[in-house]
């Protein structure tokens, strides 16, 4: 699995499921959680999506902005769990 593909998939998920056509621009390094673009419920939904799609499991303490604050951080974290 290469990182660009994972980043693109995650970006697509964030744009289509969470942002839903709002005029927010999402780049790979756009802060998502600390900027409020993704709220706590959406974060949990995204974790559920990531667990299903990439067959990984998050430890409770890993659901944190330290790991998930941007598309590139999420992708790197997902790959580190594979």
């Amino acid at each position, binding site marked *: 699995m290469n990182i660009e593909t994972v980043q693109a998939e995650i970006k697509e998920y964030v744009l289509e499921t969470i942002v839903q056509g709002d005029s*927010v621009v999402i780049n790979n390094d756009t802060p998502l959680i600390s900027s409020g673009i993704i709220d706590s419920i959406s974060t949990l939904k995204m974790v559920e999506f990531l667990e299903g799609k990439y067959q990984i499991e*998050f430890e409770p303490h890993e*659901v944190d902005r330290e790991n998930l604050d941007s598309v590139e951080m999420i992708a790197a974290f997902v790959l580190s769990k594979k």
Partner: protein
Amino acid sequence: MIASKKLLHHFIEQIIQENGQSIYIKTASHSFSYQQVFDLAKKYQKILESNGIQKQDRIVIYASKNMSSIAVMIASSLCGAIYVPISSINPASRAIQIIDEATPRFIVCDKECGTALQSSGRELNIVCSDDEMDLCLLKPSAELLVFDEEIAFILFTSGSTGTPKGVVISHEAAIVFIEWAANEFGITGSDVISSIAPFNFDLSVFDIYVTAMSGATLLLYSENETKNALLMAMRLSEDKASTIYATPTFYAALANYGKLHKYDYACLKNVLFAGEVFHLENFAKLLQYWPHRNYANLYGPTETNVCTFFKVDVAHMNYLNFPIGLACPYASFLLLSADDKVIESTDVEGELVVAGASVFNQYWKDEDKTSAAFYRDAKHQRYYRTGDIVYRNKEGAYVYVARKDRMIKKNGYRIEPSEIEKIVVSYPKVSNAVVLFSKEKNILICFVESVEVIDNDIFNIRVFCQNHLPLYMLPDKFVVLFSMPQTSSGKVDLQALKNML
């Protein structure tokens, strides 16, 4: 007449006489006994007094939820002062708004919040500093305030004029609720009570003081921890929580995302909720994991604290929605029609107005708002106008229908759209702004009127809001309009905007 002279810190003193070594507060890494917390409170009291604190001076607490904050609250009570909690989820600019309103003698803040205040240009005169908190002395405010009651704290909540308003609560009002709740839910020294809500939210009054009154243990969860349902599901199990009081949003996140099936909740007895409507599909999910618990819907705005309660009969789940229930013993109600006539019959909708010992004293330094908030009956009894439209069903229980005004409840947070609008309008190119809430999508939509704003500005307006509002008030969506639709009388046509949702 025998006046109740009980103050909040008396609960702690009582427990210390019985068993000071029992654990009052547990965090992720530490446990603190009643004696330890009280010793710290006494230390703070000394510092406050040697720096000239007077009765009814305000002490602002701007910090993440920690044990020291609770020690400051007890110290405040010991000094006869009034504490004003501000959650760390507020950006410094909103904290400063509240600080300027509250005119405190002291600000107590943790390192992060202190840094945020300093970056916003506030100089902090630190008179005492420990691992967690800095105590900062401000110039004494000239105003002398006289209350006919002992005031315990002021909870600032979103205000309809666009700035936060302070709900002034007396010791007596807090205590009548605490004593009722501890008794009603059978709380004892062996209980372990979670602290989920931030301290500026009235749910925390239950957590902090029902625990203290009963000699129970408080599980102190930080703002970050409570947002993470996966973590909370684990912690509530490991920490052996016996009583939880939180918003339906919190429980829905637990049931939907917490993986509750992985853990054991054998100690859990009471599952209490308040702040918004609990949607039954979410409740049903929770019930699958947690059958046979005491579930209760508690109702009441910050101004009255809990004034009705409804115990859910889980064996007979044939509700359309949970009623808000019956009056607490200290509360009395009237139901008013649109022209302030008292409604006697059942099944007729009207505004719920509340009198009784738990009702707030006044809005902080706002006589106009205070007098507008109360209805007076023929005997001059004051009733607080909740703004909630309810009816009384055949069983005598009250059922919530809707809001009378524009106030929004999103994820259990109370939001006045005008507070958001005021911020958005202060952004340069914006001429008007209207915030609406879509219940179906659970999102805040901000209509921005501007002839100049382009997509890139929307991004900046978002950041601007983020710097002035807590994240839960941040609009989820912005829609730019050249001009707001208007009614024939020239007002913004809210209905037309609603049709655009």
